[in-house]
């Protein structure tokens, strides 16, 4: 692909127009997952297991069925078995056997909140009343919430059928290990033995939830002809379609998924929870069925991201050049196999040049909800440990933390994740910009301290489809299969406008249903503006080609004499011009309506990097930590709509700050989630935060016509270490366990 045009060549790319769906969203008109209603719809309710691990001995639904207005009851026995196929979902993949069991327990419930039965009735009250009357007899089984307990060699097995992957021949491990992912180069032990300084430390993190504000919701109608309509909010309507078809043993083509507006996802709405259950309730009742999760259901049964136990050793020579690294971590998976161990290993040290290393990623089952992707899945945890250790190493060597990073940072041509040489990446530029930023040298107040950290995320491309068509008056209609979770309609409209040479306001973008546009992978993996953007640009270029042919016909000249300039067909010889509108108006007479649909699967994405500076203030009386200043520097490739790129940087950083300071899954002594609400699971609020300063480094990706790299995920990677190191600097103690709650800070301040 040709190199992207220089930035000053753009007319629309890089501007900040109002998003196409904006008015709907500031006036309450936008229809989200929780807002949709179908005619004659029933209300559903799900019965959830109250135990962390239990065999289901019997389920008596008779009392529920007797409640007036109840139209259907389903349990695991109503679901077909599923074949073990792997479905690609963003940057992760997953077994559908696990996901099908996660949607509805069969013989065993694996966590507090695991669905065991469901009801549909003519009102929510009747459905809730009936759900409460379903009697489930459980035999409680041993369970593990703690990673270390589950990882023990003699730990009771959560799933006796589990087979670990990646083990050495004859290697003895806990029966709860799902995978071991080792990756090494050279002799890390020998390299570390020769280091001028080393740091060895252990780090821990608890599972945290994605925390989207919209609970999961869907309406499903299984019609007598076998066709199934699904209205839901998700990060991927095609993913919902494919998984629901897989779980229910129906053809993919019989399902049509209508994507509603999505109220946040962050990876947590790649998964399927409610749709197959609502589908079976609808099949049994013959009416559309709506299922909604409560906030407590969301915490108990969706998300979270893995907790972790991490050991790190880093070694450097006296000048601060890293000579060796050893990283070994154990991530929790929840009740079913997860996918974060491999990206954890890939992102552990890949942003630095380390000659000799040994990385081992483990994953173990725990009796928690099946973990889900969360923004740069697998990277923030291990990055927290490695970046904290690097800050400690810099202190030991008396080197500035940005300097030590600059000495070791990867650049174009250096080996990247898993060894392949890197393209036009911008970590070094991020670090230089952080160093030059006024924040880095600003004076600190009493009780305040500063730290930096950086991080990487691979980003992704993959399959997407877009269509571009012209209305009779020349209006441009763009349809994609990518749900708009944070402004992607605006970026698609900008790219279409730039390509076609017509004003932004003339572009109309919709997120189409699964029967109206070709397959598109989830909005996740920082892939949408990159991959779906390429589909839009390619389709727009194809429409230009069609328009040139039509213009040639209208002007009765050879098409080779027509050029496309500023949204018009121009005959090069005599300068005759035909506008898009003139061509569209005559399209019926020149060959038919003008439209083009393009499917793509680009993989020339490039990893993103971010360097972040954090100032904290610690209240020594209470242990409370306030983030008082924060700067995010990120290599964004090219910012199509800079305001929404800044928004990704700010939002990702604040999620990371929440992860560092407040957020954690807390289970009680009975293995039940104790903080399944926003009061006790405290995400950052406006009064916790300062303004989040942003610096966009635009190092264009040659693999995208306008230089896009993907920006959504990497900003959540560095904050954990930046905050933890800053707090440590403020109180003179290393903070190696997240969250850094006031209790922990207070204890650290007051221990001997």
């Amino acid at each position, binding site marked *: 692909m040709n190199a992207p045009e220089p930035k000053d060549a753009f007319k629309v790319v890089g501007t*900040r127009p*109002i*998003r196409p*769906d*904006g*008015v*709907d*969203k*500031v*006036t*309450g*008109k*936008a*229809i*989200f997952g*929780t*807002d949709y209603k179908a005619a004659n719809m029933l209300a559903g309710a799900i019965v959830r297991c109250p135990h962390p691990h239990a065999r289901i001995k019997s389920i008596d639904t008779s009392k529920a069925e007797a409640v007036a207005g109840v139209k259907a009851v389903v349990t695991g026995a109503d679901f077909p078995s599923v074949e073990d196929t792997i479905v690609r979902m963003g940057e992760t993949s997953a077994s559908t056997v696990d996901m099908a069991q996660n949607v509805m327990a069969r013989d065993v419930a694996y966590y507090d909140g695991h669905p065991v039965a469901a009801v549909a009735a003519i009102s929510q*009250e009747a459905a809730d009343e009936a759900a409460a009357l379903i009697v489930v007899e459980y035999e409680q089984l041993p369970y593990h919430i703690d990673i270390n307990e589950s990882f023990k060699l003699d730990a009771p097995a959560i799933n006796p059928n589990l087979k670990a992957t990646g083990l050495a021949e004859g290697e003895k491990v806990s029966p709860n290990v799902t995978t071991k992912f080792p990756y090494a180069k050279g002799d890390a032990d020998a390299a570390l033995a020769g280091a001028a300084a080393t740091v060895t430390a252990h780090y821990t993190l608890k599972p945290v939830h*994605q*925390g*989207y*504000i*919209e*609970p999961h919701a869907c309406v499903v109608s299984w019609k007598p002809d076998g066709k199934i309509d699904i209205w839901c909010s998700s990060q991927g309507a095609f993913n919902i379609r494919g998984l629901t078809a897989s779980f229910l043993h129906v053809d993919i083509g019989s399902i049509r998924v209508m994507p509603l*507006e*999505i*109220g*946040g*996802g*962050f990876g947590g709405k790649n998964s399927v929870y409610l749709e197959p259950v609502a589908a079976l309730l609808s099949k049994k009742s013959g009416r559309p069925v709506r299922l909604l999760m*409560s*906030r407590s259901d969301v915490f108990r049964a969706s998300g979270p991201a893995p907790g972790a136990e991490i050991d790190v050793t880093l070694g450097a020579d006296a000048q601060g050049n890293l000579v060796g690294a050893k990283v070994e971590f154990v991530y929790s998976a929840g009740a079913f196999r997860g996918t974060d161990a491999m990206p954890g290993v890939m992102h552990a040290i890949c942003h630095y040049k380390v000659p000799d290393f040994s990385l081992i990623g483990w994953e173990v089952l725990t009796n928690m909800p099946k973990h889900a992707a969360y923004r740069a899945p697998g990277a923030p945890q291990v990055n927290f440990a490695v970046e904290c250790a690097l800050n400690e190493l810099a202190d030991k060597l008396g080197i500035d933390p940005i300097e030590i990073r600059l000495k070791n940072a990867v650049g174009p041509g250096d080996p990247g994740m898993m060894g392949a040489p890197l393209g036009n990446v911008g970590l070094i530029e991020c670090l230089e910009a952080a160093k030059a930023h006024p924040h880095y040298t600003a004076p600190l107040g009493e009780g305040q301290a500063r730290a930096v950290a950086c991080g990487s995320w691979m980003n992704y491309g993959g399959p997407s489809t877009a269509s571009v068509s012209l209305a009779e008056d020349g209006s441009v209609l763009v349809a994609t299969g990518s749900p708009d*979770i*944070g*402004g992607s309609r605006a970026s698609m409209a900008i790219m279409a406008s730039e390509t076609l040479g017509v004003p932004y306001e003339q572009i109309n973008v919709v997120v189409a249903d699964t029967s109206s546009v070709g397959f598109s992978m989830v909005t996740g993996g920082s892939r949408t503006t990159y991959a779906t953007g390429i589909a839009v640009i390619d389709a727009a270029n194809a429409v230009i080609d069609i328009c040139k042919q039509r213009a040639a016909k209208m002007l009765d000249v050879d098409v080779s004499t027509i050029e496309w300039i500023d949204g018009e067909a121009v005959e090069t010889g005599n300068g005759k011009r035909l506008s898009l509108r003139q061509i569209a108006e005559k399209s019926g007479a020149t060959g038919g309506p003008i439209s083009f649909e393009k499917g793509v699967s680009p993989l020339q994405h490039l990893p993103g990097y971010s360097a972040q500076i954090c100032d904290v203030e610690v209240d020594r009386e209470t242990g409370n930590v306030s983030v008082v200043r924060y700067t995010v520097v990120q290599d964004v490739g090219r910012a199509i*709509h800079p*305001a*929404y790129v*800044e*928004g*990704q940087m*700010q*939002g*990702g*950083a*604040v*999620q990371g700050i929440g992860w560092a300071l407040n957020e954690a899954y807390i289970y009680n002594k009975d293995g039940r989630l104790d903080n399944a*609400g*926003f*009061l006790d699971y405290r*995400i*950052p*609020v*406006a*009064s*916790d*935060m300062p*303004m*989040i300063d942003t610096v966009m480094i635009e190092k264009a990706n040659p693999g995208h016509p306008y230089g896009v790299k993907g920006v959504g995920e990497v900003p959540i990677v560095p904050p954990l270490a930046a905050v933890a190191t800053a707090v440590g600097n403020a109180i003179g103690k290393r903070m190696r366990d997240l969250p850094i709650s006031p209790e922990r800070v207070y204890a650290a301040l007051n221990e001997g």
Partner: protein
Amino acid sequence: MSRIHVTTTVNGDEREFLCSPGQTLLDALRDELDLTGSKEGCGSGDCGACTVILDGEMVCSCLVLAGEAQGRRVETIEGIAEGSQLHPVQQKFLENAALQCGFCTPGFIVASKALLDKNPNPTETEVRYWLAGNLCRCTGYDKIVRAVMDAAAELRQERTAA
């Protein structure tokens, strides 16, 4: 269970609905009056997505019983714009890209309007504390706070001009 007949003023119009004794104002707005702009993010008063103005006071409509709306005035997100004329808070949210997914946005806009009705010249800190009951997971609050400050400035200018 017998249902309660409620007459209330919603966005300036007199409305009637039947509700059950335990039904929340949020559910009545969404299910009985089809005003789905107010969202339920938690149902426990922690997220503010259901924020409405009741007799001039900002409340979480999930914490108010529908029956309590009898004879009172309710303003929801659907009533913030005047016809097709957006309120400055709405316009500044658009111009500042102060929304990403947009699910929390109605609650933020209603809460911000309630703030500016009382305090036309809030400091950044006052805005942040006023909005501390509204959760946004996407934006990190930066652009939201800027939008509210911008809207306040515009409203002050309008008042000076008037």
